[in-house]
């Protein structure tokens, strides 16, 4: 890597964000609307807005929603599938599910339509023995048929290929002679794990987004080169690591959901620098809220993520869960006369009433506006927007059946939203085996910091960490990311000497493969780190728990002890009666990049020696109208200490400090809210 600036650019659903850190530590940021048709256009605009000199830039790390959008909107490349005779419908049958527990309706569209799914005679059994040899003539015919049908990408997915990939490899070899390009994905290549539906969908998604991602990246590189950029472009993956743009399309499915992962990586990095190793991250956007758990400074990675109903993409991804409410969630009174918030959402279009784009139903954002938590002055800034009286009237209508006035109705909406969000965050935390009270809440996204203190109180969380630029967290994730490759090996052995040998052997192989992959990158790596773990269960169970192994392969006794400890902490159950089993061996090989200094995220020269309110506003807090001071965050002294009530505003978010809570400024421009004013140490 040259010694130029590092630039992170993240394309989100609504905005394209940029963070640039130059070698002196100076930081520049930009936020511009995402250009959906050609994301590269928004990226170039952001670079222009931040006045980046591309010939001098050192490295660009890019988070893109190209593949996520293609999958969710099914705007995929025409892709064909060749599979084992008798099994072409696996991708459409799924796992026998329906979208919701109640209501016997549902619609499902397979990634590859039935007429482009062909079968050839071949069969392995579960042990990897050949039952039926591959019919190569039939295979050639099938490849030709799909080529003639206009397919651009091809998937070869055979039953039990995780146990013996010979047929898939041979078939890919033959197909390569006929296929006009490189877009051939073998089922076992991304995910060598059992479960034909999940493996097949993962491969099908990969193939059908490959051409799109490759074209997009080529165009972006071309445009950057035209403007004199000479450095490398790295692309964020859903595992929170980055890979070179020259390699990324091979495993294009790994870039799906990279945006949320990137935000969580930034949270982990920020937390580590601030001495907060255990975080519950919470990113509240317009339509939904993403929640993740960071333990010991690192977020867990899962390979069982379903990105929507019956759409599993089982490559390792940072475990981010999407829960209910966002700022656009709509409040209604139901037939039982009770208040409901969500699941309906006004989305980005028309959005909340206060956006002035035609929304008519009351949302969480509107409640915040009416209560003075958001600046009602912004209403006037919206062209053709609505006035406060409109909000007043809508909430008065909402309050009528509840027997309360407009403000009380708005407060109830906030309270209900917080109750539900806190419940959802608790469920995520518990399902990952953690008590939320042991964590600090890390609030980001545009709407997150407004609700954070109230949520923390609801959850029993003592502290909230609010980063310097909550609205640019995903772009920051690009800047601080490391190179990363994840490996998973199924072994499935009862805990004993054989299992220990298999664990040792697997780790050795995974570490070697990872080192070779990192060797292909052009940027500097400070050190190589290995995150080792095994997934275990008691014999006879179907769920697994992850047992981290910071020192690599343990001995038999140690592994047994570690497993029992993890199990007890999760379930409060001990089972000396039953034998343990090692299911998979996991290793992440991480190329650690040079640390990035975040101290310039809020420019020191803009800070004042003392905190002075820029004004006051009437805010409804706990039923009372309170004259609340408003501060501009960039002007606060770095080590500010304020007691609530207070509102802290900045370009990308607003932070509410409720009465009784205290906010403290710490290094890197972070703020810590001490819930209940408690001044304990972390």
């Amino acid at each position, binding site marked *: 890597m040259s010694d130029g600036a590092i630039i992170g650019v993240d394309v989100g659903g609504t905005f394209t964000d940029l963070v640039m850190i130059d070698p002196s530590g100076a930081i520049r940021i930009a936020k511009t609307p995402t250009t959906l048709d050609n994301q590269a256009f928004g990226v170039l605009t952001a670079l222009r807005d931040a006045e980046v000199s591309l010939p001098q830039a050192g490295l660009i790390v890019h988070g893109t929603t190209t593949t996520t959008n293609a999958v969710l909107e099914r705007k995929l490349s025409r892709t064909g599938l060749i599979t084992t005779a*008798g*099994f*072409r*419908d696996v991708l459409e*049958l*799924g*796992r*026998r*599910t*329906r979208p*919701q*527990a*109640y*209501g*016997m*309706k*549902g*619609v*499902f569209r397979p990634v590859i*339509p*039935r*007429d482009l799914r062909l079968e050839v005679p071949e069969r392995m*059994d*579960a042990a990897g023995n050949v039952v039926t040899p591959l019919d190569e003539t039939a295979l050639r015919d099938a490849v030709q048929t799909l080529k003639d049908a206009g397919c651009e990408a091809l998937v070869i997915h055979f039953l*039990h290929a*995780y146990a013996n990939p010979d047929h898939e490899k041979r078939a890919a070899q033959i197909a390569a002679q006929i296929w006009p390009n490189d877009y051939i994905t073998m089922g076992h290549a991304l995910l060598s794990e*059992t*479960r*034909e539906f999940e493996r097949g969908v993962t491969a099908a998604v990969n193939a059908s987004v490959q051409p799109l991602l490759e074209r997009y990246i080529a165009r972006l590189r071309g445009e950057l080169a035209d403007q004199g950029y000479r450095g490398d472009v790295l692309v964020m993956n859903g595992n929170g690591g980055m890979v070179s743009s020259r390699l990324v399309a091979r495993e294009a499915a790994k870039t799906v959901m990279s945006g949320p992962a990137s935000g969580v990586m930034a949270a982990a990095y920020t937390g580590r620098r601030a001495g907060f190793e255990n975080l519950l991250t919470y990113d509240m956007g317009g339509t939904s809220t993403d929640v993740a758990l960071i333990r010991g400074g690192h977020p867990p990675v899962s390979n069982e993520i379903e990105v929507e109903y019956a759409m599993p993409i089982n490559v390792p991804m940072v475990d981010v869960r999407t829960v209910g409410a966002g700022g656009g969630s709509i409040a209604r009174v*139901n*037939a*039982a*006369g*009770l*208040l409901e918030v969500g699941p309906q959402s006004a989305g980005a279009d028309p959005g909340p009433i206060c956006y002035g784009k035609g929304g008519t139903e009351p949302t969480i954002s509107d409640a915040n506006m009416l209560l003075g938590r958001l600046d009602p002055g912004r209403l006037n800034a919206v062209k053709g927007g609505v006035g406060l009286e409109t909000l007043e009237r809508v909430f008065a209508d909402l309050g009528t059946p*509840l*027997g*309360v006035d407009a403000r*009380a109705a708005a407060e*109830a909406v906030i*309270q*209900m939203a917080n*109750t*539900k969000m806190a*419940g959802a965050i*608790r*469920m995520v935390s*518990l399902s990952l085996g953690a008590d939320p009270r042991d964590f600090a809440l890390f609030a980001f996204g545009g709407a997150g910091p407004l609700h954070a203190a109230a949520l923390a109180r609801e959850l029993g969380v003592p502290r909230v960490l609010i980063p310097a630029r909550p609205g640019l967290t995903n772009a920051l994730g690009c800047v601080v990311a490391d190179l990363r490759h994840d490996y998973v090996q199924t072994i499935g052995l009862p805990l004993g000497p054989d299992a220990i040998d298999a664990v040792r052997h697997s780790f050795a192989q995974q570490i070697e493969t990872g080192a070779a992959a990192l060797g292909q990158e052009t940027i500097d790596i400070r050190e190589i780190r290995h995150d080792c773990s095994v997934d275990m269960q*008691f014999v*006879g*169970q*179907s*769920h697994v728990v992850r047992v981290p192994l910071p020192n690599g392969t343990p001995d038999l006794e140690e592994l047994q002890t570690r497993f029992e400890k993890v199990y007890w902490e*999760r*379930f*409060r*159950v001990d*089972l000396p*009666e*039953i034998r343990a089993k090692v299911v998979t061996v996991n290793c992440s090989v991480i190329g650690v990049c040079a640390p990035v200094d975040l101290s310039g995220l809020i420019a020191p020269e803009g800070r004042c020696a003392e905190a002075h309110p820029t004004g006051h506003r009437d805010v409804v807090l706990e039923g009372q109208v309170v004259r609340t001071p408003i501060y501009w965050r960039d002007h606060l002294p770095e080590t500010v200490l304020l007691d609530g009530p207070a509102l802290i505003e900045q370009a990308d978010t607003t932070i509410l400090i409720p009465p009784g809570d205290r906010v403290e400024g710490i290094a890197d421009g972070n703020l810590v809210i001490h819930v209940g004013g408690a001044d304990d140490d972390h």
Partner: protein
Amino acid sequence: MTIDPITLSVIQAGLQQVCDEMDLSFSRAAFSPVIAEANDRSDGIYAAEDGALIAQGAGGLPVFVGTMQYSTRTLIEMIAAGTVAAPQPDDIYIVNDPYLGGTHLMDVRFARPFYRRGEIFCWLSNTGHWPDTGGSVPGGFSASATSVEQEGLRLPPVRLFKQGKLDTEIYSIICSNIRVADQRIGDVKAQAAALMVGETRLHALLDRYGDETVRAAITELRARASAQMQQLIDEIPDGTYRSTAWVDSDGVVNEPLAIKLAITKTPGHLTFDFDGTAPPCMGPMNSVLATTLSSVYLAMRHIFPEVPISAGAFEPLEVIRTEGTFLDAQYPRPVSGCAAEVSQRIAEAVFAALVEPLPHRVTAAPAGTSGNFALGGFDPETGRDFVMYQLSGGGYGGNADHDGLSNGCSTIGISKAPPVEIMEQNFPVLYHRYALREGSGGAGHHRGGLGLDYEIELRRGDARASFVMDHGRFGPQGALGGEDGAPNMVEVWRGGECHVPEHLSKEQDIPLTAGDRVRVRTPGGGGYGNPATRDAQLSAEDARLGRTR
């Protein structure tokens, strides 16, 4: 004490959260794959005085939506009558008797009294499907049982945990009577730990809002759920709506069993009259009353999913004249088919009656069978006995908006089917086909979804195949002019000859040897509306993709 609607909403969310956390804890720690993977379990909170359902986890198996309030009520009555020992703090009762408010024997209920200031404030209870509770066949689904004793060990309510300690004497009796007993300790501990989670969380809720406030909120929420259900059923014009649904046979006597239903709507009230329904049967297709009521409730919840599960929501629904029918079986009638099959036929009868007055809410009939195919035998390669279950999905009914979903889960379940690769890893079988069943969806303006077509070969040793399925004689009903979906088909190929079960969808212990095959085609969904009005483009696409024939 009156409570404002906002506090009510918050307490309702809080009670729901307690139950959801119990559900989560139970599934994550359970051993039995039916609990851990298939979520064949449910957790809830029940009233101290009569067991009425206060709140139940959203992720519970639908068929349990109404059962636990009956088992809890029975328990409370038996304690009052002195026929069951009175509780002490930290006791947990175990019970699986179907006739005491249950389903089949495999659904084992735990109930724990929840104390506040020395008084029972409410009950916490959960149900989990154990893989085996003894009886003549592994797993408990005997298609030819003629009394409950053949179906397994029947437990009256006894305190399995006494003041927090497992009673090892009772436990050893249980373990001596069930298969794979060594793993049950894991499920028992998981099931008990889930109730403990509920206890802790409920105390926190009460500490925060106050016992009296929560008590008053529970009463008020019940009244409001009732009002909400009344308002929704008032979408139905007053009148009587009739339907008939057929169970193929009881597995012993090869005669169809009719469920006759007349639903009468009066303002704010629905009466479900089962007069004319077939009498109790010899084989295991009897239902106990709790399961029959629960089946009606779950069908209504499929129609109105927005109503939270609580006793209040069920109040406007009155079920009558089940006495003397196979939907109100008494000891010792065999009942193993009630939760998985009969329940779905009851739901079908409800759908078929209400699709006309609620055409935008209700679908044509779904496949409506759990498709239980069990294969038990000896694997010479591993030297061990095995029991394999293949449960399968089928097509859903067409509806006002769309064609039916293909290969959906049973009406009463929410579980995923296991992958073919996992089945082949665990059992000596080879699948030759696992495919959409072409042409199986009932024709209609919106056609039914497609069923599943699979074929399995036994690779080694000898085994016995058993089937407890349904809809073999009649396909799932079409609605509003739509045609029926294709019926279930079972073929057993032995030495190149095809055997079809006499009861079509049910048979016990068909001997197989290596190389023999079983082919099952599950039902397609019923069609919705007149096929002649179907969009020509949709029909052309169906033909092009081979969905229709």
